[in-house]
C-alpha cells in the first residue's frame, strides 16, 4: 500500500513538476515585491503638509524586513517619488526614523509602533503589517486575504499626522477606520462591484482629485 501510494505520488509530482515548470514564474510574485510596489504607489495618493520639515530626498524607512528594503532599493533607480529620488533606510529604533516621509513596520514589531505613537506626531505615513496595526497608530495596514495583499486605512491616524489620503486609495482599501467623516463622504471601501457607491464613482471620474475625506 505504502509503496503504491508513494509510487503514485512520485509519479504525479514529477509530472506536475515538469508541467508546471514551464508555466511557472509569470503569475506568482513574492510578498516582498508586491508590498514594495504598494509602498511606492501609496506615496502618490498621500499629501504631506506643506509646512512639514521632511527629509530630502524622499525617505522610506523600513523596520524589521530586509526583504522589503532590498526590493525598495532595487526599485530606486527608475522610480522617483514626487520628482525626488528615493532613499531607503533600515532602522531599529524610533530615534533613527528622523524626518522620513514613509515608514514600513514589519509584522512582530508592535513595540516599535507603540514607541512611535508615544514619540509624538511627525507627519509620516506609517504602513504596518500587524493584525492590530491600525489600533497601534499606523495609517495603512497590510492584510493578506486569500493569498492577496490588501490594506486597511485609518483616517483618524492620518488626521493626527496631518496627512491627506486620496479617496482613490480609500476606494481600494478593504476597510476604512475612524476619522471625522460624514456618511457618504468616502467611497465604500470594498472590492465587490455592487459596493461602489455614487460618491466613489464621481471621485474616480474626476481623475482622483486629492480631496481630503475629512469633514
Amino acid at each position, binding site marked *: 500500500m*505504502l*509503496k503504491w*501510494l*508513494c509510487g503514485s*505520488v*512520485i509519479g504525479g*509530482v514529477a509530472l*506536475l*513538476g515538469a*508541467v*508546471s*515548470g514551464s*508555466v*511557472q*514564474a509569470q503569475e*506568482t*510574485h*513574492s*510578498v*516582498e*515585491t508586491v508590498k514594495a*510596489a504598494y509602498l511606492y*504607489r501609496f506615496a502618490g*495618493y498621500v499629501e504631506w503638509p506643506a509646512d512639514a520639515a521632511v527629509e530630502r530626498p524622499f525617505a522610506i524607512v523600513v523596520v*524589521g524586513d*530586509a*526583504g522589503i528594503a532590498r526590493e525598495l532599493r*532595487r*526599485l530606486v533607480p527608475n*522610480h522617483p517619488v514626487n520628482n525626488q529620488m528615493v532613499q531607503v533606510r533600515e532602522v*531599529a529604533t524610533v530615534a533613527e526614523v528622523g524626518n522620513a516621509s514613509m515608514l514600513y513596520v514589519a*509584522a*512582530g*514589531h508592535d*513595540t*516599535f509602533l507603540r*514607541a512611535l*505613537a*508615544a514619540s509624538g506626531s511627525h507627519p509620516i505615513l506609517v504602513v504596518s503589517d*500587524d*493584525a492590530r496595526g491600525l*489600533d497601534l*497608530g499606523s495609517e495603512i495596514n497590510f*492584510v*493578506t486575504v486569500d*493569498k*492577496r*495583499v490588501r*490594506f486597511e486605512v485609518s483616517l*483618524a491616524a492620518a488626521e493626527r499626522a496631518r496627512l491627506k489620503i486620496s479617496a482613490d486609495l480609500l476606494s*481600494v482599501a478593504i*476597510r476604512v*477606520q*475612524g*476619522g471625522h467623516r460624514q*456618511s457618504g463622504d468616502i467611497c*465604500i471601501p*470594498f*472590492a*465587490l462591484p455592487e459596493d461602489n457607491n455614487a460618491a466613489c464613482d464621481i471621485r474616480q471620474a474626476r481623475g482622483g482629485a486629492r480631496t481630503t475625506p475629512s469633514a
Partner: protein
Amino acid sequence: MNGRSRSGTRWLIIATCALSIWAAGTAGADPAAGEDLTQLSLQDLANIEVTSVSKAAEGLNRAAASVYVITQEQIMRSGATSLMEALRLAPNLLVTQVSATDYVISARGFGGNPQSQNFSNKLLMLIDGRSVYTPLYSGIYSDAQDILLEDIDRIEVISGPGATLWGANAMNGVINVITRPSYLTQGSFVDAAAGSREQDLGARYGGRATGDLSYRVYGLGFHREAQWLADGSSAQDGWSKGQGGFRSDWSADENSVTLQGDVYRATEQQPMAVDGSIVGGNILSRYEHHTERTNLQIQAYFDQTQRFGPADGTGFVLHTYDLHFQQSIEAGANRIVWGGGERLNSYAISNAVELLFEPPERNLTLGDIFVQDTFSFTPALSLTAGIKVEDDPYWGWTPLPDIRMSWQANNRTVLWAAASKAIRSPTPFDDDVIEKIGTEVFLAANRSFRPETVMAYEAGSRVDAGAKLSISLTVFYNRYDDLRTIEPFSSTQFLPIYWGNLMQGDTYGVEGWANWQVTEWWRLSPGFTALHENLRFKAGASGILGIAQAADDPSSHADLNSSMNFGRRVSFDAAVRYVGALPDPALPHYFELNGRLAWRATDSVDLSINGLNLLHGRHYEFPSSQGGEAIGRNVMAEARWKF
C-alpha cells in the same frame, strides 16, 4: 517480531519518496526576479496572488511566551476537515484521536488517564474569546467544537501557563481560535468533501448592509463513520452534525461592535444503545473603543450546551453567562492592561444510578480581576508583570501571578524568560461526585479538594534568520503540587475512597520548531517536543493506582510539514508526525502521514485529494484499555468554490 525491519523499510521508502519529490520539484525552478509591479494600479496590486512566505510566529515574535500561530492558509492546505485535526499543525500541542467523536488535546503533558477518571484538564481553549473548557469535569468536549475552517483567521497556541490573562485552567497552555471579521469573508463559499470515512458540506455567504456594517452567515454539516474496536468489530460510534451561525461587524470612528452566534446539533451512535445527542448554541457580543493611547473592550456571551447519553437517561444541561471587560493604556514606557469579569455556570445533571453529582444542580460563579504592566526599559528590553485574582466557586480567591522578560538581542534574535503560577481549579467532578457499586458508596465527594497548582519557569529564543528561516526554541521546568490522587476513607476503613491532593512532581522539557523557505515554492516546517515527567506521592498518600493515574504521556513527539507550490495552480502538502510510546497503559510509538494534493481548476474553484493517517489501514493513538479505538485511514476528495 519483524517490526523493526518493517519500519526500517518503511522509512527507506518514505525517504526515497521525499527525495524524489524534491528532485521533481527542483525541475520547476525559481521564478525570475526583477519584475516591476509599480506600474500597476492599486486595484491590480490588490488582485495579485502572492506566494506566501508567512512565518508562523508572525506578529508575535516579541511575545515572551512559547507561541505558535496556525495560519488560515496552513489549515486550508492541511487536508483537515475539523478543528481538532487542524490543531495537529501546532508542534507544541499533542493531538490524540481517541474515537470517532473524541480527541484529547494536551500541551507539556498531562493528557490524562481516563481509566483513573483523570482527563486532559490543564489546557484552556477559547473560540473568539468564549471559553469552551467545560466547568463540569474540566476538559474539552471536542465533538461540540466545530467551526467553518475557511472562516478561521488564525489559531494561537500558547504552551505554558497563561493564567494571568486567561485565568484558571490555562495551566499548561491556551488555544485561542480567532475567526476572521466578516468584512474579510465577503461573497459566497461552498466546500464539499467526500470519502468512504466522512462526508462534509459547508457554505457561507458574506455581505454588507451598509459601508460600516458587514455580516456573514454559514452552515455546515457532516457525517463521520465509526472507528474500530480491538477485536476488529465496529466501535459503532459514527456521528452526524449540523451547525449554523453568523457574525456581523460594525465599525465607525473609534468604536466597533461584533455580534456572533452558532447553533449545533449532533447525533452520536452508541454501541448497543440508542443514539446520544448534543445540542447547543451561543451568542457573543463585543464592543471595542479605540483611542490613540487606549483600547477598551467589553464582551458578553451566553452559551448553552446539552448532552444526552444513551438509554440510562444521563446527561446535562449547562448554561454559561459571561461578562468581561479589558482596557489597555499606553502611558510613557508603560503598557497597562487591566480588566475583570464574572461568569455564571448554571447546570443540571441527570444522574446515572452509579455515578451521581450531589447536588445535581448548581449555579457556580467565577469572578476575576487582573492587571498587567509591560514596562520598556529600552525599546529592546521589556519586563511584563501581572497578577490575576480569581474567585473560584469551590476554593475562593486565588492569586495567579506572572512575570516575563523579553530582550530583542539584535535585529534577528529575541530572548525571553518567564516565571508564572497557574492552577487547575476544582470542579463538580472533584467536589460533588459520588460513585456507587450497587448500593454501596465506592467514592465520596471531597468538599475540601484543593486546586492543582503549577509553578512554571520557562525561557526561550526566537531567531529570524532572514526571510528564509525562523526558529523558535523553548525550555521549561514546571513544579506541580496538589495533583489529584485517590485516598482511602481512613487508616482503618477503605471505602468510600475520595479524591485527595497528594501527588507532586516536576516536569521539564524542550519545544522547538522552525520554518524554512527552502525555495520560493517549497517550505519545510519541522517541530519537536520532549518531555520528562518526574511525579511522586506526598507523605501520607495511599499510592492507589500509582503515579500513572496522573498522565500517560509520550516522552517526545515530532512532526515535519512540507508545503509545495507547483506554479500557481497546483500545490502539494504533506505532514508526517511521530508520537513516542505511551508508558502506562502502554502503547507503541507511531508514525502517521497527512497530505493534500490540490489543483486550482479556475480562479474560484479548488479541487483536492486529502488523506489523513495514510500510513496505516488502522492505527491506535490512545490505548484500547482507555477507550482508544483503531483509527482508520481517511482519504477524500474535496471541492471548494468561491463566488
